[in-house]
């Protein structure tokens, strides 16, 4: 008897499921025809359907990496609002949650495709990006990631840097680029220190990627790396006294930290407690350390970092963006936000230059945008005169800044 009940239940449920699937299945082929969004009414009220160019994107809006996803979402919203306020081409943004999980990113991509996405901000983080990039290439939808910095986001064969997808671009530096740039900078400025210690996170794509290229470039430039075994991972990201002690023992007078600002703040605090005072050198993940709650910013004095964006810059664009962001979301934007803001503007600029209209199919838009991106130059928050090559890598110069009295100060070369 139990089985019969269960079977009827099961049948009823499977019918429900099938109904749900077909109910949402109305918008297949949305890439060619501009059908109304069939589901998840995210931000569909603005203007009439069909009059806007639909920009999709996914990022970790929940979970441990949510800070980055939220920053990108917020900044992209501001940018879309501003672009729409100018008149002319109208855009619509749909950011989906992927919880920094490749599996969920692929699902989010499905949601966006059903929604009728015509161009995309790809993903915020690298591993999900690598999972969806082939789909963007296959479906010919233009994508530019604000912060997916790994080479695997834009290359099908990242080890040999070949097989670029062609329609997936990056707004941020690739990881190798940052490692190389850091090593070059340290080599060119021997006054910072000559014995290099490194602490990095060995279960993190980003940190590991920069570390690898830094080591390669350091070897090429003949830099003296005295301590490079200082690794940590998610489970022991609270206590760095062992690594710091070893670095001190090895006599490192410059400590390279290719990590995010959260563990970096602990390293600075604990090094200070130990009385160990090397020159600290970070990369763009270090950006945000001054905004960290409960962190004594005086400890960050003298920290060098290479970053494409500093919220304390005084140019008009940055000031206006930072004040808007603060007003709307109550916090200082980080470089992820700035990258996302630039992405939207870059897409808008390319669309305008190529004469893209909202009724074009995503393939048409893709062809036109790729053509634009490989030829145009773009100036935004994270750099001026940016250019992209055929593989989708951006060329812009990282700015070296040093923290003095709680603000970034540009370093003159």
């Amino acid at each position, binding site marked *: *008897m*139990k*089985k*019969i*009940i*269960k*079977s009827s*239940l*099961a049948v009823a*449920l*499977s019918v429900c*499921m*099938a109904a*749900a*699937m*077909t109910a*949402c*299945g*109305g*918008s*297949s*082929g949305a890439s060619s025809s501009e059908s109304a969004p069939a*589901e*998840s009414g*995210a931000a569909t009220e603005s203007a009439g359907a069909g009059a806007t160019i639909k920009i999709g994107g996914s990022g970790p*809006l929940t979970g441990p990496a949510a800070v980055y996803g939220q920053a990108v979402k917020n900044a992209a919203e501001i940018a879309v609002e501003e672009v729409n306020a100018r008149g002319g081409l109208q855009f619509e943004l749909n950011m*989906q*949650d992927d919880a920094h*999980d*490749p*599996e969920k990113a*692929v*699902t989010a*991509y*499905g*949601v966006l*495709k*059903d929604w009728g996405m015509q161009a995309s901000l790809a993903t915020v983080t690298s*591993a999900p990006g*690598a999972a969806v*990039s*082939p789909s963007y290439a296959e479906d010919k939808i233009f994508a530019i990631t604000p912060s997916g910095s*790994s080479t*695997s986001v834009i*290359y*099908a*064969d*990242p*080890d*040999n840097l070949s*097989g670029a997808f062609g329609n997936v671009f990056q707004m941020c530096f690739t990881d190798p680029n940052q490692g190389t740039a850091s090593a070059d900078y340290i080599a060119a400025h021997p006054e910072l220190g000559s014995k290099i210690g490194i602490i990095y996170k*060995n*279960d*993190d*794509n980003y940190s*590991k*990627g920069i570390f*690898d290229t830094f*080591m390669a470039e350091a070897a090429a430039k003949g830099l003296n790396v005295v301590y490079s075994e200082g690794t940590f*991972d998610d489970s022991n990201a609270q206590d760095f006294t062992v690594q710091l002690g070893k670095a001190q023992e090895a006599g490192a007078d410059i400590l390279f930290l290719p990590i995010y600002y959260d563990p970096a703040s602990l390293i600075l605090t604990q090094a200070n407690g130990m009385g160990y005072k090397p020159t600290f050198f970070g990369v763009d993940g270090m950006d945000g350390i001054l905004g960290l709650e409960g962190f004594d910013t005086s400890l960050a004095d003298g920290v060098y970092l290479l970053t494409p964006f500093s919220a304390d810059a005084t140019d008009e664009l940055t000031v206006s963006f930072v004040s808007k962001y603060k007003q709307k979301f109550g916090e200082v934007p980080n470089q992820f936000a700035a990258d996302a803001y630039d992405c939207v503007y870059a897409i808008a600029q390319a669309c305008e230059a190529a004469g893209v209209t909202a009724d074009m199919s995503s393939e048409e838009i893709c062809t036109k945008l790729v053509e634009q991106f490989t030829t145009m130059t773009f100036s935004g928050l994270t750099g001026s005169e940016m250019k992209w090559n055929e593989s989708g890598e951006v060329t812009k110069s990282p700015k070296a800044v040093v923290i003095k009295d709680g603000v970034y100060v540009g370093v003159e070369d």
Partner: protein
Amino acid sequence: MKEKKSILSFGGDKKQRGRFLSFAIVIIAYIAVEILMKTGSLNSLFTSLLVPITCYVVAAIGLNLNVGVSGELNLGQAGFMSVGAFCGVCVSGMLAASIPAGIPRLIIAIICGAILAGLFGFVIGIPVLTLQGDYLAIVTLAFGQIIKSIFMNAYIGMDSEGLHVSFVQSNFKLQPGGKMLLNGPMGATGTQKIANFTVGAVLIIIALLIVYNLMFSRSGRAIMAARDNRIAAESVGIPISKTKMLAFVTSAALAGAAGALYGLNYSTLVPNKFDFNTSILILVYVVLGGLGNMTGTIISTVILILLPELLRSLQDYRMLIYAVVLIVIMLVTNNEWLMTKWKSLFAGKAKGGASNG
């Protein structure tokens, strides 16, 4: 023939029906989805979910054999999945040149993944399953963590000279044109996506065949006897650790096969994916579906994977609602009074027999 007769006589009609129902659900669902896909009325979201659903179903069926039928708690099913996944991805990458066709390569990868995961299960099972008590839970929990760390630090690459394996990256150099199959924390990238839904559906059928045949065979009855009363089972001469080992290794191998299919469905695979949370997630599918109930496992897995996606329109609240729904289901299915009401509502003839979960 003789064996089959004994199954019938022992299992009776009821078991046969439950068995038939599982297969019927899988086949009907498969046909329905295929028709929807052919007519183009299945949207991209569901299309992208099909293969992961089959993977999790297979892993959950395997886990149910271990947790439900054999009664040993396993908290490392994701670990076995990751063994299968990375093995499958590596095998597929190595054979890419010699077997360009996707399906045969996928099948070889799945078989390799299943064998390797089964082997790991065997090695773990040797010391643990001879013990009494919940040691398997502790050891599989540790296994899940260890295997994650191992893959996090493993570098496997292939070039013209052959296969290179290392746990230290600094001395890892490939010839030009070589390909990294597994790159430490970055995992496997640039994997060719060769998994498809048909293979997944077939894998579920095979998993069900294996599990049901095991459950209703002599060994299966021995497994359940060992679960229900160890001392009594021992007294009639059932080798306890051997029967438990059979269930555990089968469970691990199924997880490995599921993992291989999963790994080859994505172009990138990171070791972090198969963490403790994933193990617990699979355990939730099993518990919700009912211990020892394969049909229930299939249904609960499908629902729990689809639910958060169907709730996407609720934006920020979806994970909250997902959790609430999960708790409500757990409470309701464990409430005898509610279940009896529900049952009598469904089938008028039901006499309201108490459910024993």
